[in-house]
């Protein structure tokens, strides 16, 4: 950790925490239907409801809410799939990109609908502008909105007293998109353009390089997609190089704000939680638990990368940081950003389920690369995806209070709601699904010829590549370790399955829990109630996340990055 890295991390956290409260209040007001913005956008909202035949005063029970989201997401998959398969015959395709193959199109459709944004394809050689805008960018908004409305429904479950409904899915989706995501994306896109990100429908440009060779520069409506890619923790890049590409992420300033925008909504939603349940300390406690895990992980990632490669040291390569060089392990990193930004970005993008990258995670040192892997394996709850991070964390919180409640001799309760057998059943499903998808998927991949065919690197690193891909898909992160050629029918289908169930098989039990919690009485906190806002609870929550989240992956990690680390330092 260089002084520069500390400064960067400190400044980042300071600005983030300053923004959490105002945005959190705004989101709470919008979702509770009493923000000033609703009066401004009222007419537009009314038109949307009229077109969709939505009656906004009609409330939904959890099952209806869940089915609405399922229908919405399924239609999304069909739309994205169709646009890719037909793009050659549709307008706004100056490069005449071919129709995408069925398995790749299916994978990408599921990927963008589930907020994973795993990309088996390379953007600039696969997707036409219309596909990028109408299929991918639209889903960037809608998948983010889906995540947010689910957590809002869960928060309502806690906040409401013996209620039969958890809101109206169509109204919630409309309002999140219209009043939260669109304005933020608009502001951010304009800022990106001001810094040099491109936004056009021009054909690709051929330019002469200094060596007099010809290079083709890809063009497109980049800034508009880039903004929501970060704000909605989607992470699917316009270009294959993702945020390492200068047209996506032109300057160190845009890089800083890209990093900030990843955690912006996930952080603000914690405040929204506190606000909606009527005790902001509850929100801060959850945020504190997330922030502590994140800081430790970020410091570890940066430190491992700055430490460099012992084999280079043996070859007398100077890897210390100085005024003239970054030092450390610079393999696979964008020189514009260096080690501190790359380590921080890698931790951020995997802590939140963003998946945008500015460096090759495959080229990280074994333990440096294990950090992003672990952040995803914790279940994407350290800030996590917009909405999904908080509902994931609340599932862990429910589990933590369950055990803690028993330990103090009371039927566990969280935020005034009793946690009983039904909630435990749903919690169990939510924490079961992802590890089983990841571990099972990895097992299938390493046992089949089709799976083994995609692995580039030998030994434990190859195993890490497969494990990373499945982890990324199952947890809806979407970042790639690279080093795995995943655009094959085998991986396209398997990862699509992992993404779909990793998303919806968690959303369903969470909404079921929201419904059952909403129907319960809100209990008052007494001296016998376990306080869930102090350092003790934060510690407990972190402990639960680490113990329950990580224990599942210890053997797999031992066989991948850990053994690779021991081998590297043993000089092999």
């Amino acid at each position: 950790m260089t002084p520069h890295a500390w400064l960067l991390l400190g400044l980042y956290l300071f600005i983030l925490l300053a923004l959490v409260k105002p945005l959190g209040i705004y989101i709470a007001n919008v979702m509770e239907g009493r923000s000033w913005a609703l009066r401004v956008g009222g007419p537009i909202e009314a038109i949307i409801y009229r077109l969709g035949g939505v009656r906004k005063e009609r409330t939904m029970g959890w099952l209806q809410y869940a089915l609405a989201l399922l229908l919405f997401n399924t239609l999304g998959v069909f739309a994205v799939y169709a646009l890719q398969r037909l793009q050659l015959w549709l307008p706004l395709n100056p490069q005449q990109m071919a129709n995408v193959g069925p398995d790749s199109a299916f994978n990408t459709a599921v990927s963008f609908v589930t907020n994973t944004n795993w990309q088996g394809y390379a953007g600039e050689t696969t997707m036409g502008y219309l596909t990028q805008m109408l299929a991918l960018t639209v889903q960037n908004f809608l998948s983010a909105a889906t995540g947010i409305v689910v957590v809002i429904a869960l928060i309502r479950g806690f906040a409401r007293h013996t209620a039969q409904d958890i809101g109206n899915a169509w109204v919630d989706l409309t309002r999140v998109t219209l009043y939260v995501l669109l304005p933020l994306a608009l502001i951010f896109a304009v800022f990106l353009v001001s810094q040099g990100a491109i936004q056009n429908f021009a054909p690709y440009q051929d330019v002469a390089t200094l060596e007099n060779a010809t290079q083709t520069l890809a063009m497109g409506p980049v800034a508009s997609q880039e903004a929501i890619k970060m704000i909605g923790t989607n992470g699917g890049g316009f270009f294959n190089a993702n945020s390492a590409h200068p047209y996506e992420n032109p300057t160190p300033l845009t890089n800083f704000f890209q990093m900030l925008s990843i955690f912006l909504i996930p952080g603000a939603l914690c405040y929204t939680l506190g606000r909606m349940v009527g005790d902001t300390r509850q929100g801060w406690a959850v945020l504190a638990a997330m922030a502590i895990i994140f800081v430790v992980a970020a410091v570890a990632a940066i430190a491992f990368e700055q430490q460099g490669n012992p084999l280079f040291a043996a070859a007398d390569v100077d890897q210390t940081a100085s005024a003239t060089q970054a030092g450390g392990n610079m393999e696979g990193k964008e020189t514009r950003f260096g080690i501190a930004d790359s380590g921080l970005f890698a931790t951020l993008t995997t802590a939140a389920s963003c998946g945008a990258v500015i460096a090759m995670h495959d080229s990280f040192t074994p333990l440096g690369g294990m950090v992003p892997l672990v952040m995803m394996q914790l279940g994407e709850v350290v800030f996590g995806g917009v909405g999904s991070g908080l509902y994931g964390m609340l599932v862990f919180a429910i589990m933590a209070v369950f055990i803690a409640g028993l330990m103090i001799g009371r039927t566990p309760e969280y935020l005034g709601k009793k946690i009983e057998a039904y909630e435990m059943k749903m919690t169990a499903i939510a924490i079961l699904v992802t590890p089983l998808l990841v571990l099972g998927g990895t097992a299938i991949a390493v046992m089949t010829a089709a799976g083994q065919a995609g692995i580039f690197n030998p030994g434990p690193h190859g195993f890490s590549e497969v494990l990373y891909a499945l982890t990324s898909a199952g947890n809806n992160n979407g970042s790639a370790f690279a080093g795995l050629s995943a655009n094959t029918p085998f991986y396209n289908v398997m990862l699509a399955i992992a993404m779909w169930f990793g998303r919806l098989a968690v959303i369903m039990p969470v909404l079921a829990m929201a419904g059952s919690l909403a129907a319960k009485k809100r209990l008052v906190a007494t001296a016998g109630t376990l306080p869930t806002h102090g350092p003790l609870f934060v510690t407990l929550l972190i402990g639960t996340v680490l113990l329950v989240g990580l224990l599942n992956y210890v053997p797999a990690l031992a066989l991948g990055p850990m053994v690779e680390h021991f081998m590297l330092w043993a000089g092999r």
Partner: protein
Amino acid sequence: MSRKTLALFDPTLVKPAIVDSFKKLDPRLQWRNPVMFVVYVGSILTTVLWAQALGGQGEAPASFILAVALWLWFTVLFANFAEALAEGRSKAQAAFLRGAKKTVVAKRLREPRYGTPVDLMSGTDLRRGDVVLVETGDMIPADGEVIEGVASVNESAITGESAPVIRESGGDFSAVTGGTTVLSDWIVVRVSVNPGEAFLDRMIAMVEGAKRQKTPNEIALTILLVALTIIFLGVTVTLLPYSIFGVAVAKAGSPVSITVLVALLVCLIPTTIAGLLSAIGVAGMSRMMQANVIATSGRAVEAAGDVDVLLLDKTGTITLGNRQAAAFLPAPGLTEHALADAAQLASLADETPEGRSIVVLAKQRFNLRERDIHALGATFIHFSAQTRMSGVNLDGRQIRKGSADAIRQYVEALEGGFPSPVTQTVNEVAGRGSTPLVVADGAKVLGVIELKDIVKGGIKERFTELRRMGIKTVMITGDNRLTAAAIAAEAGVDDFLAEATPEAKLALIRQHQAEGRLVAMTGDGTNDAPALAQADVAVAMNSGTQAAKEAGNMVDLDSNPTKLIEIVETGKQMLMTRGSLTTFSVANDIAKYFAIVPAAFVTTYPQLAALNVMGLASPASAILSAVIFNALIIIFLIPLALKGVKYRPLGAAVLLRRNLLIYGLGGVIVPFVGIKLIDMLISLAGWA
């Protein structure tokens, strides 16, 4: 009830428990505990692998597989043993209760009133609705209600309390229990239960666990444990392909054996808590029995741990049921001294606390010494249920003391008058919340003794304790606000409900519940029944009416209203024991990973030896040590499971920090030490 309390590992309990541990290997019984069923299947699987290895086609040395298989069987047996031991204790209690169930000859009346002819029949043949006569010296043949007569009854067979109680028709003292004995007078009882439904039968059924169902929290915890088991099943099953792939790419070593994977699985799944879970539940019910409380269900016991508000009747709970003399208030024209003198004489042979307190007050006020009752040649008239007076006949004087109504009847029968100033004094005293006792000498009313409420010693401390537990106490009394406030302040309760009517009680409970609190209350009268039915935890006094007992979800055999505090503690203890052992069990996994993961894969990746932080001797001994630790820890924790984690009245946060440190941090550290020690023993003995 004075029961023999058995030592934890009493030989009379251990021997049948060992036999039962083997009987419980029946797969139909094992299936009821999903986590232990996985261990059970693992034991069978490794045993088969061992047989295969004996045939020369083993995946590992036969001796190693045998050792793992044996310790897996031990794990199952240890869990069975814990459950059998807890059940054994309950059965011992049930056997004691059965001893109290004797065959009684019942005198069934042909008509439901006193004086009609009786048929002699066996008490066990009585049906609900039969009417029986019970006379002095008879044992009451079945539970029922007094419909005629008054009698003093010895209920020590049920309550352990030797002082007789009055049972009479109508009012709050009409319920009688089968197995208790009438000491004087007679009563006509209408039987209220059919054979097999009686109180004793219910107690026996409960402690025998015949009706034991899983409590809500136990169900929720089981779901969590099953979920963890499924995850770890996924973790271990997928390790085989990972290992095969690792061997293929590293071109070294051999894939991990099934035996090792089963060992890892059993170590990772929460066997410690799963093995002890049912023992904890049985032991909790058994502790309730020792406290002389019958709960209708485990659910009620568990709910007791969640109580936020405690409604307590003033009389008998907060104040001594018996009031004490505080003042002598003479009738006009009489001195206080004369009244005190007469009152003392009337109370000399009165051994009730009230009577003693009058003697004590007379001595304090006027230094009236206690006179030798035999030297006086006096005849004492004892309190009887009919006259409701007691007193003394001495030198032609007939001194009586009793309630205002009883004395009025008495003096009016002697053609005396009840002076109106005394009536006024009586009303004043009653208005203060005290009890007036009137003294008469023949037909002449001497005055009033004021009996005041005395707050029980130590009750204030108990309320402080409850406050620390987060429980609010509310005193319920029929007194007026002023009296209630004075006593409430003296006793240190948080709140009080004065001039309480049954409707007001019910409304108070509903109000607390609407605010999201869990309410507990005790009661004994028929007019308590609606409130008892509404409360979340309702403890009916055994001395109370049948209606009260049916409305409550627990019955306190000792009829001690402060018992509620013990009930709350037992409820909390049950949950705490489960929670603490779950934490311990999950925290154990860290050390087990450090033992097994390097051992399982070291042939493929020798570098993983770096994870062998405990420095275990060999892969085989490392795996075996983890499995042995996992089995032995169940045995070591049996005492804790049966006795329960000690409850301390501390705030929630303090309690959690404490238990997290002990069972969370302890759960991380203990297995490191334990596994290392076992490994040292194994390598010393040269077993692996």
